[in-house]
C-alpha cells in the first residue's frame, strides 16, 4: 500500500526507494518485518533510473579481496533472485549471466587488465575465472568487432539485466508482500526517543520505527551524521547513449557497450567529477560514441535516439559502506556504487544482518572508519 504517514506501524524504516533500498526491504519483508520505505520524489538524484545494468564481476575489488568476494557471492545468488521476481510479479528483468568481455583498444590497456586480473586470481587462491583473448578470439564472441580491438578480458561470471525492469519488479513485489511505500519528500531529521527512531520529512510528516536503514545514495551524506554514522559519498557522473532497436548482434555484455533485451544498444563508460550536474555534454558523448564505434564499426549506421547523465554514488575508495551505528544502535548505513551487481547480496545476506544483527566479521572492511585511519 501507499501511505502518507505512519505513526507507529512499522518496525523498520528504509530511507531511499532505489534499487539498494528496495533489495534490502525485500529481504527484511522475507524475515517477516513490517517495512516502510521512504522514497524522496521525482526531483531526487535517481541513480537507479540512470544506470547501465551490468551484473559485473571481473576486476571488481582489485584492491579489496572482500569486495571481490561479495561481488561473486551476489553474482551467484542472482539467478534465483531474478526467478523469484519473475514468479511473483510476472516481470522478466532480462537477467543474462553467460559471461562478459572487457574490450581493449591498446596493447597497454590489455596488458594492464591482464596484470590486474592475474593479481586478483592470486589473491583468491587461483579461484578467479578469467582469460585474456586476442582479436581473433574476441571475434568468436563478436564477429563484428573492429580491427582496432586489440583483445579483451573474459569472465564467465559477468552478466547484465534491464535495470528499469529490475526497479519496477522489486517495487511491485515490495507492495505485494505488504511493504508500505511513502512519498513524503526528503527525510530532513532523524532523532531517537527511548527505543524509537523518529523520522521527519520535508512535508513535516513523521514516521516511528525501531530500526532505520539509510539507503539514500548521495543523500546518505547528510543523513548519516544524524545517527552517528559517516557517509563520505561524492557524485561521479556517467553519460549513457541509447540507440534505436536493432536485431541482436552484441550477444554478450562488455564494460562499455551492451545490447538490451529489446535490441537497443546502450553505450557508456564516462566518469566525470562535475558535482551534482546530471546533464550531458557533446564532448563526452562524442568520446564514448567514438570508442564504441572502434569496438563495433557497424554502429556508424545505427542511430542514437537518447542520451542522459546520471550520478554514481562514490566513496573515496569506491567500495561500499555497510555499518551499524555504535552511538545509535538500530541505525544502519548501506551505500555502494554497484547497486545492480550487489542486488542479490543486498536482498540476501545483507538484509539478514539487518534483521538478526549477526554481522559477518569479514565485512568489517566496509566500515567507514577506514576513511579516517
Amino acid at each position, binding site marked *: 500500500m501507499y501511505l502518507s504517514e505512519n505513526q507507529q506501524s512499522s518496525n523498520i524504516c528504509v530511507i531511499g526507494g532505489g534499487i539498494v533500498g528496495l533489495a534490502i526491504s525485500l529481504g527484511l519483508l522475507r524475515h517477516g518485518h513490517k517495512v516502510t520505505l521512504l522514497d524522496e520524489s521525482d526531483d531526487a538524484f535517481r541513480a537507479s533510473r540512470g544506470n547501465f545494468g551490468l551484473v559485473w564481476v571481473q576486476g571488481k575489488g582489485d584492491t579489496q579481496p572482500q569486495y571481490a568476494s561479495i561481488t561473486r557471492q551476489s553474482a551467484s545468488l542472482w539467478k534465483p533472485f531474478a526467478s523469484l521476481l519473475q514468479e511473483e510479479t510476472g516481470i522478466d528483468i532480462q537477467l543474462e549471466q553467460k559471461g562478459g568481455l572487457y574490450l581493449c583498444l591498446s596493447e597497454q590497456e590489455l596488458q594492464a587488465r591482464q596484470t590486474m586480473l592475474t593479481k586478483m586470481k592470486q589473491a583468491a587462491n587461483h579461484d578467479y575465472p578469467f582469460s585474456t583473448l586476442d582479436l581473433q578470439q574476441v571475434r568468436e564472441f563478436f564477429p*563484428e568487432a573492429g580491427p582496432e580491438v586489440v583483445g579483451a578480458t573474459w569472465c564467465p561470471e559477468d552478466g547484465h539485466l534491464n535495470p528499469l525492469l529490475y526497479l519496477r519488479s522489486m517495487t511491485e513485489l515490495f507492495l505485494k508482500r505488504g511493504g508500505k511505500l511513502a512519498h513524503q519528500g526528503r527525510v530532513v531529521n532523524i532523532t531517537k526517543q527511548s527505543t524509537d527512531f523518529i523520522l521527519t520529512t520535508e512535508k513535516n510528516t513523521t514516521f516511528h520505527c525501531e530500526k532505520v536503514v539509510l539507503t539514500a545514495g548521495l543523500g546518505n551524506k547528510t543523513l548519516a551524521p544524524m545517527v552517528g554514522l559517516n557517509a563520505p559519498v561524492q557524485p561521479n557522473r556517467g553519460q549513457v547513449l541509447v540507440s*534505436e*532497436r*536493432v*536485431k541482436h548482434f552484441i550477444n554478450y555484455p562488455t564494460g562499455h557497450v551492451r545490447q538490451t533485451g*529489446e*535490441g537497443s544498444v546502450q553505450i557508456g563508460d564516462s566518469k566525470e567529477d562535475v558535482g551534482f550536474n546530471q546533464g550531458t555534454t557533446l564532448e563526452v558523448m562524442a568520446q564514448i560514441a567514438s570508442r564504441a564505434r572502434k569496438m563495433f564499426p*557497424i554502429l556508424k549506421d*545505427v*542511430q542514437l535516439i537518447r542520451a542522459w547523465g546520471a550520478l554514481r554514488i562514490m566513496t573515496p575508495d569506491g567500495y561500499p559502506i555497510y555499518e551499524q551505528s555504535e552511538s545509535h544502535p538500530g541505525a544502519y548505513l548501506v551505500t555502494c556504487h554497484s547497486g545492480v551487481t550487489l542486488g542479490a547480496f543486498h536482498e540476501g545476506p545483507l538484509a539478514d544482518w539487518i534483521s538478526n544483527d549477526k554481522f559477518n566479521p569479514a565485512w568489517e572492511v566496509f566500515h567507514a572508519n577506514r576513511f579516517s585511519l
Partner: protein
Amino acid sequence: MPTDSRFNRQPIRESEAIQVSINGKKVMVQPNDSVAAAILLSGVDVNRKTPVSGKKRAPYCMMGVCFDCLVRVNGEENIQGCMVKVEANMDIQTQDGTRQAIK
C-alpha cells in the same frame, strides 16, 4: 491509382505531382509532402510493426516526436517518415519488427 484513405488533402496550391513507390505501388504525391503524409494519403494503414510486441503502428504526431512513423526509405530502415520530404522515385517500404544493423 485509386486510393482508399481516411485522410483527405486540404485545398492547396497544387504543384506538379511526383511519383513515389510505397510497398512497390506507384503513388502520385505533392513535392512538399512528407513521407508520412504520403503513406496516410496512399491508404496504407500500417507503416510498421513494433520490435517487441509486434503491434501495428501508423504515423501519429507528424512532428518528429513519437517515432511511430518509422519506415524504410530507399533501403534504409527506421527513418522517421514525418521528418523526410518525398523525392521523385523514392522507394518507401513498411517495416516489420526490428531492423538489421548488419546488412
